[in-house]
C-alpha cells in the first residue's frame, strides 16, 4: 500500500515538475507547481510529518503560490520569448546537470541500505511535538523568523509601491 502511494504521488510530482520547467506560459508553470506541492504533502504524510504536510498545503500551496498567480496576473506575463543566449549555459548546463543528478543519485543509493519507510513508522511529527520543540529549545530561531517576516513585509511594501508625483 505504501509503495503504491509512494509511486503514484512520486510520479505525479515528477511529471508536474517537468511541466513547470517545460511550459512556456508562466501560469501553466504555476499551476503545475501547485500540483508538485500537493503531492509532496502526501509524501510528507507518508513520512510521518503531519504538521509539515498541513503547513505545506496551507502556506506553500495556499499562500505563496497564490501570491505568484497574483503577480503573474499583475504583470500580464505572456508566453516567454526566445531571446538572448548564454554561452556558459549552452556549453556547461546539461553536462553539469547530468553530473549532479548522477553523482547524488549514485551515492544516495549507498546510504542507509536497510532503512525503509512505512506509514506510521515515525510518530513524533505531530503538532504537539513540533510545538514543544519550537517553544522549547528552538525558541530563538522562532522569534527571529518573526522579525524576518516583518522585514520581508516592509521590504515588499517599499519596493512595490507607486512613485509619489
Amino acid at each position, binding site marked *: 500500500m505504501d509503495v503504491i502511494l509512494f509511486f503514484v504521488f512520486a510520479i505525479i510530482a515528477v511529471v508536474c515538475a517537468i511541466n513547470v520547467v517545460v511550459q512556456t506560459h508562466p501560469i501553466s508553470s504555476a499551476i503545475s507547481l501547485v500540483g508538485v506541492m500537493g503531492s509532496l504533502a502526501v509524501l510528507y504524510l507518508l513520512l510521518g510529518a503531519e504538521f509539515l504536510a498541513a503547513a505545506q498545503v496551507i502556506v506553500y500551496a495556499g499562500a505563496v503560490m497564490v501570491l505568484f498567480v497574483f503577480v503573474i496576473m499583475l504583470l500580464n506575463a505572456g508566453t516567454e520569448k526566445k531571446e*538572448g543566449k*548564454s*554561452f*556558459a*549555459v549552452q556549453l*556547461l*548546463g546539461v553536462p*553539469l*546537470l547530468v*553530473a*549532479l543528478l548522477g*553523482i*547524488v543519485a549514485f*551515492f544516495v543509493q*549507498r546510504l542507509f541500505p536497510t532503512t525503509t519507510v512505512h506509514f506510521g513508522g515515525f510518530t513524533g511529527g505531530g503538532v504537539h511535538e513540533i510545538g514543544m520543540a519550537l517553544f522549547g529549545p528552538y525558541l530563538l530561531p522562532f522569534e527571529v523568523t518573526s522579525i524576518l517576516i516583518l522585514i520581508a513585509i516592509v521590504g515588499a511594501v517599499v519596493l512595490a509601491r507607486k512613485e509619489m508625483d
Partner: protein
Amino acid sequence: MALWLIPILPFAGFVINGLFGRRFSKAVVNIVAIGSVVLAFAWVLKTLLGLGSLETAATEHYFTWIQSGNLNIGCDFAVDRLTAIMLLIVTGIGSLIHIYAMGYMAHEGGYYRFFAYMNLFMFFMLVLVLAANYLLLFVGWEGVGLCSYLLIGFYFDKQFATNAGNKAFIVNRIGDFGFSLAMFLIFVNFGSLDFGKVFHQAPAADTGLLTTIGFLLLVGACGKSAQLPLYVWLPDAMAGPTPVSALIHAATMVTAGVYMTARSWPIYIHAPTAMEAIAIMGVVTAFFSASIGLVQNDIKKVFAYSTVSQLGYMFLGVGCGAFSAGIWHVMTHAFFKALLFLGSGSVIHALSGEQDLRNMGGLRTKIPITFWTMMCASVAIAGVPPFSGFFSKDAILLAAYNHAPWMYWLGVLTAGMTAFYVFRAIFLAFFGEYRGHAHPHESPPVMWIPLAILGALSLGGGFINIPKFLEGFFQGVPEVPENSSLMFVSIAAGLIGISIAAWFYLLKPAMADSLASSLKLIYTTLYNKYFVDEIYDATVVKPIVGGSRWVLWKGADAGLIDGSVNGLGAASQGAGGILRKLQSGNIRSYATWVLLGSVLAIVVLFIASTNYWGGLQ
C-alpha cells in the same frame, strides 16, 4: 705638540669659506683662506723647532678610528725627518701659491669656492703627509684626488674642463685600486697597517710577498704621480686655473707617490725586483714625456710634460736606492716647477688669456720681473750649477750610473732634452718680436713677490743638503761612490740643450719649422703625444662604455630586470583580462558557475567521505 692643528687650520678655512664665503667680501675670504695656510706654515715651523733633532719619529695618537676584529686603525700623526721636509714644502709653497692666487683669481667668478677647495686640498695633503698608517695616508690620498677633480673642473661650464676632471679622477682610481690591494695584502700578512708595525716585520717577510706589495704600491704611485702608463690625466689637468697646476700638479699632490714610495722603503729594500721596476718606469717615463714636451705649443702643456718627466727622475732615484736624492729632487722640483707654472700664469695674465707660444715673443722688456724669475727657474731645471736642480739631479744620475749605466745615459739624454724644451719655451715667449695682439702688462706685486721668493729658492735651494739631513734615515741603501766625470757629462748635456734651443729659436728661427717638416712623421707622432690618448680611448674606454651601455644597461637592466618586473605586471593584466570575461552580467551564466562549483564540492565531499576510491562505508 698639537700636530692636529697643522691640517685642521686649512680645514677650518675650508669650512668657513665653503659655508659662508658667498656672503663674505673678497678681503674676508682672503684673510680666512690665506691666513689659515700661513698659520699652518707658522705652526709647522714652531713644531719642528720645538721637536729638536727628530732622530726618532714623534707620534701623537688621537682616537681609534676603526676597531673591528683584528683590524685596529687609529688616527695617528707622526713627524720624522722625511715628514718634516714634506710639511715644509707643502705649507711653505702652499702659502706662496695661495698669496699668488689672490691676484691671479681676482677677476674670476667663484672666488670663495676656489679658495675653499684649495684649503680642503691643503687639509688632505697634510693628512697624507702626517699619517702614521697606510689607511690614514689613503684617506689623504683619496682626498687630494677629489680636490684635484674639483679644482681641475673649476670652470665647470667648460666641457673640456669637466672632462679633464673626470679623466684625472678615473685614472687616479685605477692607481688607487692597486694601492687598496697592497693594503689588503699588508693587513693580511702583517696584521696591521701601522707604519711602525709593518716596517718592523718587513725584513722577515717573504720576498715574493714584498715584491707583490711593492708592485701594487707602485701601481698606486703610478696613478697619483702620473707615470707611464697612467700619466694621461696630467696634461689634460692644465684645464684648471694656473695656481692649481702649480700647487697640485707640480709641487705637492703628484709628489705624494714619491713620498709614499720613500716612506715604504723597508718594503722596497727587501724587494729588489720591485725597485728595479720603479727605476725602469721612472727613466722610461722621463724620456718619453720629455720627447713629447719638445714640440708642444701650449706653454702650460710644455711644463705639464716636464712635470711628468721630472717625476720620472724622482722615481729613478728611488728605484736605484737613492731615496734621499729622490726626496731632494721633490724639494727642488717644487721650487722651480711651481715657479715655472706661476710664471707662465703671470704671462697668461699679462696677455689676457693667451697660452699659445706661437703668439708670444719679446715679452722680456714688457714683463721683466716675470722674465727674470722664470730664467732662474729655467737654469735650475736645466741642471746648471750651482743652482738647485743641478745638485738633486746629479745625485740621482750618480745613483743611476751605480745601479745600471744604461739608465744613466738615458737620464743624461733626457736632461739635455729638458734643457732644450724649457729654454725653447723661454726663447719663444720672451725673446724675438711680439707676435700677438694683446697689451702685455706686468703683474701686480701680490703675484710677483711669490715669484721672486721662489726664484731665490730655485737658485739657492741646492745648498739645503737633504741627503745629509736624511742621513741614517734610509738604512740598507747601497753606497754611491763619488764620480766627478759623470758630473761634467750631465752639466755638458744641459748646456748643449740650451745651446741647441738658442740656435733654433734665437739665431735661426726658421730652422725649427724646416726640421719639423722634413722629419714629418716623427714630429706628428711627438706632437700628438704618441696617440696614447687615442689608443686608450679605442682599447679601453670604448669597449667598457659599449659593454655597459649594450650589455649591462639595455640587456640586463632594461631587458631582464625591467622586463621581468613589467612582465609580471603585464601577465597579471592579461590574466585579469581573461578572468574579466566571467563577469558577463548574464544571471544564467552566473548560475552555471555556481552549479559547477557545487558539483565539484559534492564530488570532493563524497570522495573524502569514503575510505578509499570506489568503496563506501
